[in-house]
């Protein structure tokens, strides 16, 4: 099927074709979601190379899981996000490290990444430090809504929450983040 047709195909159609063994349909799904999944993983691990390896692992697992995937109101992006979270749990377990600790280290040691300007890296290190101090659910809302730039509706679908809840939680999480930063500034 042509690229143009692929663009018009829904996720469900692509999944059906991929289930039937059409690799290119899965390739299209990959192209649709790789940036989001990579961004999420990149926001949670220290090194670019780690995020790349994990992203590849997520999509391989996703392909293996195609047989069991049924939409049932869970968009494919949300499904991939869950795989990514599970993959991270395994990754942290293997590293014998806690997710929060890794979050705090985010991007800090990534000297090998030329795409990140030094100032930007430093700024993100600071933000990631404070982000890691928030409750996990607040962190996830901020990551999905602001780092991945999902809408409140999409964020809600991925997290299994209502869009209104996401909006309020995001606002509160930003306030908490600001309060943490302000506290440190005053010291």
């Amino acid at each position, binding site marked *: 099927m042509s690229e143009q047709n692929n663009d018009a195909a829904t996720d469900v159609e692509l999944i059906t074709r991929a*289930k*039937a*063994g059409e*690799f*290119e349909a*899965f*390739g299209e799904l*990959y*192209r649709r979601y*790789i*940036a989001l999944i*990579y*961004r999420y993983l*990149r*926001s949670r691990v220290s090194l670019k190379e780690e*995020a*790349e390896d994990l*992203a*590849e692992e997520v*999509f*391989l*697992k*996703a*392909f*293996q*899981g*195609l*047989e*069991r995937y049924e939409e049932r109101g869970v968009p494919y992006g949300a*499904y991939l996000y869950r*795989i990514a979270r*599970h*993959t991270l*749990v*395994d990754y942290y377990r293997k590293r014998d490290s806690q997710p929060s600790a890794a979050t705090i280290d985010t*991007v800090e040691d990534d000297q090998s*990444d030329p*795409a*990140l300007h030094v100032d*930007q*890296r430093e*700024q*993100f290190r600071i*933000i990631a430090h404070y982000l890691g101090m928030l409750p996990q659910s607040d962190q996830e809302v*901020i990551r999905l*809504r*602001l*780092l*991945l*730039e999902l809408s*409140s509706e999409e964020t809600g679908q991925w997290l299994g929450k209502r869009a209104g809840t996401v*909006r*309020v939680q995001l*606002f*509160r999480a*930003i*306030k908490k*983040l*600001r309060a943490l930063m*302000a506290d440190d500034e005053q010291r």
Partner: protein
Amino acid sequence: MKVNMRRMELLEDYIARLEGGASYDEVRRDAEIHGDEGLLALLDVVAHLHTDAGGLDPEPAFINATEVRILNRLKRDPAQIPRTVRRPSLLRQRRWVRVSLAFCLALVLVFGAVGVVDASAASLPGDGLYPLKRALEQVQLGLTIRASADAERLQAQIQERLAEMEQLAGLGRYEDFGVAVDGYLRGMDEWQAVQQAQGEDAGDEAGGLDAAANAAANVAVLQRIMEQVPEQAQAALQRALARAEEHAAQQPAQGAPHEPGPDQEERQAQHEQERLNRQAEQIAAKYEVTVEDVLAVYHDLCSENWGCVRTHYRNAGGEE
């Protein structure tokens, strides 16, 4: 924490504008009109996150190279491909195919295909050979002469239904629970009827001992399965658990002691070990790992929780 709705809406609007491509300076200028320092402070945080998020994007070279690598790997290594794609199962396609196949298998059985009998013994609800397994159980039951042998057969069937539920939980096949639960309830009905008849005839104290031990063990097994399965699968299990608890509660009235003797403990331990091995074999076969690996994960990593083992291999092999 109280939410200032006006401030929240304004912040949302600014987030949308930043995401839409507006510059931070432009958005901040507009925000300053409100003279709300608190809002500006929050906007600064958002702007930081928004700007810094740019550094999280994957490089185009990585996206392209990984796509090629993944697709090549999938094409080259059939183990990466879902089973339905690699080898469509005839058994899962149509009901009439399953029925025809079961009939053919029954014919083969008549001519002594012991292997098929063995295969069906390991089948689970939802498998093509499962109806054969249940039919064979009925045949075996029909071949017994004494009531005590009937009771033993029925108890074995009940234990088999429990083992099936445990294996289904381990495999995440919650949709097939209903069949095993129905089988369990039917087995309990028949077994209790036989027990009652036996008790009326002979007042068998040893039977009472076994019944009490079995009832307690069944409740424990069902409670353990219940802990492993998601909420939607618990409704079916609840019926079996309620029945098992009801049965266990009836045991003191029969005058049966609660403490099992050494023989019973040994039997229970043996039964438990067999159940454990069956469960491990199922998971090992599904995820293509060794039984020893599965048991190691079960004991060392998962604190003897099959749900955790399943999640572990699913995560390693791909699923929610």
